[in-house]
């Protein structure tokens, strides 16, 4: 038998063997990684429910993991890097700190992994494998300003708590709030501004605000920690008059504060829809279909009037409307 023919036969034999070995394996479903800012917060549990709903519709698997505590940027970076090592089908990320996460995300993008950033934007421009599904911060700021303005009848002094210059979402929210307030309620003055602090120091911050400006009429808590801090400070040193408090965020504590009557309303992100749309966008990217570069979802306003509405609860309490 000629030598070439023998070699050809050998190659065919090996190919047949490998084929037989490969045929015995079942194809694994695609896995999409979801890495929110932190694991236990209600906002991210709702996002998780949204991603699971989308995953069950599309027949994909969700890998969900996050830092145990908000602000643990290093842990979130390591999770993002791990997603790259796992070669997942895509990443849905809610960045805890946009500057620190920029390089890890860019590395994933360079490896052609589809990435959807949710909740708070990053400075990376959209590209075919990068899209944003964000909270509409302009609307959030305007709603907050309108609520405070109408509550104070267009006159009074307010304090801002929870300013975080390192998070674009909070900064955009703040600017929208200021612009709307200045335009619609010029007689309302912002008398105090405080940067964001951790959940423990927020009480100290709030106490300082209340002590420095005893005649404050309203407060806007730009994150849940600030609202909780106000509550704790109020418990320590009760103010002589009730102030209007509007909070931003999505946390079980805010629900409890609303139920107790301490805050007047809170404005939550629609993280359930964000999660659902993000998974959908990842799969569209993988199929080469067009995806909107930037989507802004309207917030959910929870007040004493609608807090028991099952439709609202289904969106903010991680309770599915149908079995998964």
């Amino acid at each position: 038998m000629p030598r070439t023919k023998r070699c050809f036969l050998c190659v065919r034999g090996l190919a047949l063997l490998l084929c037989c070995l490969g045929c015995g394996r079942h194809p694994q479903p695609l896995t999409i990684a979801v890495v929110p800012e932190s694991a236990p917060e209600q906002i991210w549990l709702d996002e998780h429910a949204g991603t699971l709903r989308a995953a069950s519709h599309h027949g994909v698997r969700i890998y969900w993991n996050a830092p145990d505590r908000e602000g643990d940027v290093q842990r979130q970076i390591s999770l993002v890097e791990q997603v790259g090592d796992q070669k997942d089908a895509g990443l849905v990320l809610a960045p805890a700190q946009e500057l620190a996460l920029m390089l890890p995300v860019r590395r994933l993008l360079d490896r052609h992994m589809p990435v959807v950033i949710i909740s708070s934007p990053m400075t990376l421009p959209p590209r075919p494998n990068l899209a944003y599904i964000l909270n509409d911060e302009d609307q959030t700021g305007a709603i907050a300003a309108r609520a405070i303005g109408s509550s104070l009848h267009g006159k009074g002094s307010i304090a801002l708590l929870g300013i975080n210059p390192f998070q674009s979402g909070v900064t955009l929210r703040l600017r929208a709030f200021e612009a709307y307030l200045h335009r619609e309620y010029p007689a309302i003055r912002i008398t105090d501004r405080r940067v964001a602090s951790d959940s423990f120091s927020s009480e100290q911050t709030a106490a300082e605000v209340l002590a420095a400006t005893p005649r404050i009429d309203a407060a806007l808590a730009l994150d849940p920690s600030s609202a909780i801090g106000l509550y704790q400070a109020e418990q320590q040193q009760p103010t002589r008059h009730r102030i209007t408090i509007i909070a931003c965020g999505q946390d079980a504590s805010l629900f409890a504060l609303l139920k107790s009557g301490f805050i007047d309303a809170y404005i939550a992100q629609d993280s359930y829809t964000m999660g659902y749309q993000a998974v959908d966008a990842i799969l569209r990217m993988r199929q080469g279909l067009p995806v909107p570069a930037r989507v802004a979802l309207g917030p959910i306003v929870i007040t004493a009037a609608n807090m028991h509405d099952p439709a609202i609860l289904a969106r903010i309490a991680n309770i599915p409307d149908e079995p998964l």
Partner: protein
Amino acid sequence: MRPLLSVVLLVSVFCVLAAALTHAFRPVELALPYTDRFSIDGLKGWQSLGGSWFTESGTVVNDSEERGAKLLFGADTWSDYALSADVQVLGADGDAGVIVRSTDEQLGTNAYSGYYAGLRTLDGRLVLGRADYGWLESQTAAFPGGIQVGHWYRVEVVAVGCTVSAAAVDLASGARSTVSMQGQPCVQHGRVGLRSYGTAGRWRAIAIKPANAATLAALHATQQPRETIDPYQSWLSVVTAAKLSQSFPAADASATPGTVRPIGSLRYADSTDRAPRTIRGVVILRRPMLVVQDATGGIAIPAQDPVRFAPGDEVEATGVPMVSDFSLVLEKATIKILGHGNPLPPKSVSASEAATGVYDAQYIELTGLVAKNQGDQPSRDLLIDTGSQSFRAVLPEKESGRRLLHLPRNALVQVRGIEVVDPHLTRNETPFVLFLPSFDSVELLADPPWWSLENMVWTAPILLVLLLLAQLGRVRLRHLRLHAAMQERQRLGREIHDTLAQSFAGVGYQLQAVRSSLAAGSASVSEHIDLAVDMVRHSHQEARRSIASMQAELLDGNDIACMLEERARHMVKGTPLRIAAVTKGEPRPLPPRIVDALNRVGQEAVANAIQHAGTDTLRIEVIFQDREVLLVVEDDGRGFDAAANLPGFGLLSMRKRADAIGAQLVLISRPGQGTRVELRASLRRRRRLERFLRTGEPHLL
């Protein structure tokens, strides 16, 4: 078919070998039943993912209130089994319990795939659910009397097929509650684990045994009817009950009066002011001293009972702040626990930043190379080098049931701990010491590079031997090739000798016989016959020379000199030209290629001298030196300008032959001063090779 069979056979052998190796090196399977009372070996065999775990009096404790800390044990292949453990929940806002059939575990709140059964103090229920990088709560059951903090409960979980059931029993009152779940697809096998969420916990008397339907039925024997849960009402009740009553500490009339100061501000306080100050912060270290950190810095609080506190506790302390060197200490402090929370995440800093003391008493994270692992055994003390800085990472005594891994030198590690710059602790050997909260605060990032000095010392001789073997193989290969060529040449030589040379000899004899038989007077015919005889003789000699050149080691220096002399004499027969041929040095056999080159170059030089030099004397010398052989052909004829561009192929041919054997050809001639041709050929490598070929001993190379 034979090639295909060969391939199949080869692959089969490979598969058998791979299977044998896999079997030989498989991890030792943990057998059931298994019990662990944490008495002698501590946490040997257990793997922690989060939390702060240690053994204490036959129990295992996680004193961190981290969400979802896990401690895992067992084999991934464990399938149907029953797990029993006594559990204490140590906090009022969380749950603690056990995991079964756990696989694919990672650090993270619900980062595993498996089932969890736990006791939740928040609503006093036994919970059972499925975790798969997320939490899907399946069943809960109210426990009679609620779940009490610090109370022992026995939790039993049975997993058979796709049914998982759990029961909890109050060991004091005997009250019992049971939950069960089933459904497909389910997790079929996996390890066991201990887990707590948002609270510290304590476990003891871990027992795992194989289970079947009867085991499951026995657990179900006292099962209570399931409750129908309204998810909205459940969520509302949990949120309102927990968040308002427990998460937010109410005002405390006994709170220390005075303004709470940021810890960082105490560094800049008036050093003469001995007034007490109040700070608030989170506990980040308990041993060897209590350290509390807030957003602005950290402070050590000596003389405190570490048992009172857990990492993550939020405390308020009042005492006299003292600044010594870089360390901030709160002396004579009284402390009140305000609440419980998660441990703070570490700040990632460089060793250079840490060495400035800015991060004293703060939880930081550093990367470096292990410079020294103290002692022969796995120890509690690592010396870590980061290039410009070094520091010690120390695991405080009694902090863990395990010791640090025995990390090899130059391994790249990441360490998380509390920086302390107190000279009493650093002993002025390093700028700071890092106290590690637990044994898993050191993470191995990369093993040492293979090019360490020790490895190089071992590798170098091996490489040397391999190189020698490679060289030996190369020489042997050349030997075989040369031997084959020589065999072929000898065969050709014999062929020519047996055919062409013999024919020439025969023709010569025949011509001589013809000439002898010719009658007198036929002078012209005789002359032609003589000429023909000469030509035959010449051709015969050429044939012999060719034969000789094809035979290895047939010729030496004497042969070459004699051959050239004979040829020259033949050419100048009947002329007065004097020819002198000498051999100097110690003649020895030469390789065929060199013999051939010397012969050809010599013939050309002799022919040129006779034809063009008009000389009276011709001198031929073959000189043997230690490492080379030199052929000289010299005349005292008319000479020529050696630098001129000479026509003809003779000189060009000589140069080519010299180049072919790596020899040097020197032509010295000036008009009227004769001509000297030198061919200098090196014998160095060839001599060694010849010895090797003769003896076959590589050491001669």
